[in-house]
């Protein structure tokens, strides 16, 4: 019995009302607006005209940069989520071990998670600058290099940097999710495994991984959504330059809507992005709901 007495049948709905109202107006209604706009003609000054069917979608999809933007989005999401999950997991194993100064190390790990993305992206932009950047400065003064290196030679390298920064700011979330999972594991499992003669890798494969899998699932799914929607890093460092070659879907549609004033195709892309996220959401819900079913 995990519930309390409810006097009226409609009482629970009253409890939900404020939340539903808030989300209805500010989350669901904009979704409807975007859907409607994506099928309408919008002038450059923002005046909404008549419905024009799939015109916006066709304009958006046939744009020359559409292919590279979608490819960038895929690379961005897969590389950032994949690598940060791997590194975050290793970092969690490290921070779960007992050592002098563990508390300090954990506090330091919080930094990239807590600090605003715009700020971190700006700092990295400064660090990798060729003329006066901090990375060249540090390496020159450490004697590692004897001449400044151009860290941003081509847009491909720019995009790699952006992915790297994305990974840098995503790792802590994975780490702390896995740490929470690791801490809930009973130590006696490991003791038993040690008695049975399992080495580090065996314990990792047969004990740790299965036990932290739920945490990893949560962090991976949430990260897919966050990373897909991540905007400030690319916007601050390259703004998609040159010619949308470093844009992902999200930054591309922002540029379309607010700097090129082509809101029609932009809303069509919003719907596309939205549908992609819905698929992820569906998968995620299936996973979590199944879990709940198992528990009940």
């Amino acid at each position, binding site marked *: 019995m995990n519930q*309390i007495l409810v006097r009226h049948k409609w*009482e629970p709905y009253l409890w*939900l009302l404020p*939340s539903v109202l808030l*989300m209805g107006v500010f989350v669901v209604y904009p979704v409807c607006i975007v859907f409607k706009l994506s099928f309408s003609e919008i002038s450059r000054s923002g005046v909404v005209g008549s419905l024009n069917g799939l015109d916006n979608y066709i304009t958006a999809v046939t744009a020359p940069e559409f292919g590279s933007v979608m490819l960038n989005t895929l690379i961005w999401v897969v590389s950032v989520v994949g690598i940060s999950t791997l590194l975050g997991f290793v970092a969690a194993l490290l921070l779960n071990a007992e050592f002098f100064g563990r508390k300090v190390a954990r506090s330091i790990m919080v930094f990239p998670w807590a600090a605003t993305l715009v700020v971190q992206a700006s700092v990295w932009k400064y660090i990798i600058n060729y003329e*006066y950047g901090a990375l060249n400065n540090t390496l020159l003064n450490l004697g590692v290099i004897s001449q400044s290196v151009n860290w941003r030679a081509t847009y491909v390298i720019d995009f790699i940097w952006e992915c790297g920064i994305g990974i840098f700011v995503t790792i802590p979330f994975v780490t702390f999710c896995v740490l929470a999972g690791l801490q809930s594991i009973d130590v006696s499992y490991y003791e038993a495994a040690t008695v049975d003669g399992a080495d580090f890798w065996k314990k990792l494969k047969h004990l740790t991984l299965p036990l932290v899998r739920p945490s990893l699932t949560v962090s991976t799914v*949430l990260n897919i959504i966050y990373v897909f929607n991540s905007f400030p890093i690319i916007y601050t460092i390259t703004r998609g330059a040159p010619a949308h070659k470093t844009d992902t879907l999200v930054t591309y549609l922002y540029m379309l809507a607010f700097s090129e004033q082509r809101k029609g195709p932009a809303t069509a892309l919003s719907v596309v992005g939205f549908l992609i996220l819905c698929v992820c959401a569906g998968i995620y*819900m299936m996973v979590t709901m199944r879990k709940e079913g198992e528990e009940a």
Partner: protein
Amino acid sequence: MNPMQANLRALAAALLCAVLSVVIVSLPVYHFEANVYTKRSGNTFVGDERYQAARQEVDALAADYSARGIETETTEEVIERTNSKGEKTSLVVFRVNKEIRCSGWDFLRTGFPSGKVLIGMLALEAAALLLAALGCLGSGNTLWRDVKGASRALRNGAIALSVAALAAAVVFILYTNVIINRQISLYATGIAPSPGEKVLSAADALIYQGAGGQDTAQLLKSTVSSVIPLWWLQIPALLGLTVCLIAVRDGHVAHGLQRGLMYLAVIVMCVVILYPFVIMFISAFRTDADATDVNFQYMVPVTWMWENLSYILGRGVLKYLLNSLILSAGATCLALLCGIPAAYAMARMRFKGRKLFMGFVIMSQMFSPVVLLVGISRLMINLRLNDTLLGLVFVNAAFNQAFAIWLLRGTFVSISPEMEQAACIDGCNSVTALIRVLLPMAAPGIVTTLIFVFINSWNEYTISTVLINSDSNRPITVGLTQFAAFSMIQWNYLFASSLLATIPVVILFMFIEKHLVSGLTSGGVKG
């Protein structure tokens, strides 16, 4: 193997590492190349009159230096080209160079300032070995687990000292490169102020065996000097020392190696994570010119411009911070006011559509404000909330609803409902049960949610850039970009305001980090 043997072996290995470190100090790890004189002779072919004349001039100069006790080396380079008329031209460049490689001992011998760091490093190594040996005296035959008291403290001290020696090896490079060499070469090329009489005379002794005298500064012109990579061998040698000393403390060499590697990984991780934040801090207090200095003179500001802070506060940053505070506090209150009742109903009541609402909450997490920006900005214009803080309060509260409900529900579910049930039997209704009984017990979870929503709203950037046009309504995340116009970026002011925007959230985050994660995963895994 008995404990005595194990201890002795580890000690011997530590000694070996220390000896290795001393050997590396004795290697020629430093490389100076000073270009004393350059003679460019145009339109000159090897062997002709002009060549002979130039050669004589250069040889005379070299002999002159040689007489003063400065041995030099002369190189010649012939550059042949065919000009536009098809004639062959030739340029001969004579360079009189002074090249020297010196070991760590040369630094000590000539009193070069960074030599002191070297002495420190060697002393730390010797002291570490001594402490470790003392720690084994009398307790050498004891199993490491049972080593207690003074012996254990001594062995711990030895480890600390060897780590300090490791740090000194890095400081030596930094000190030599930053404070001495770069300063000398920049001085010689007229960019930096004089490095001082002491440094100049030490450099004279090191490179010219004291023969440079008054001309040292002139002679050091276009000096290229660097630690050659050989010096970096110190790092593994000293790491080895540390590992061996850990082995002395803990008994197993393998165990010591494992611990050493782990510490190395943790240190590397922390350095990488802190690097951008340290850069932000350092650069925030540079002068305008210093922040974009193409000569990379200094790693830290020459003069710390603390007044940068007051300058940016005067440029509107104070107002932006206040705006951020208002908007985040407003969004947090609203999100909790709507979220707590919903989470309560979800955790404690059974009703039709509960699963549907849960699904909606999870789904709405996928809605990102960025994807919906066009819709949101239209909605705001319709509601006349465009360009107001109130509009941002609503949007931030709405987009944080899902997380708030999720975290709060997790907290409520983890608290047993018995107390509330008892209270209900005593005549409380569900409202008073929530306020009087559940909320006080759920306080830690509520604080976590509160701080998390606050930080999210504080850090929000994308919606604010679109919705806010007037300067007086900007939150800090948008406001600080005024220092980052695409063509001209005032890095020092940008970072000074970034610092003010970052410090409060990082501190808040450290408080809730532990609770937040367990809340996230329990909420998430339990759906």
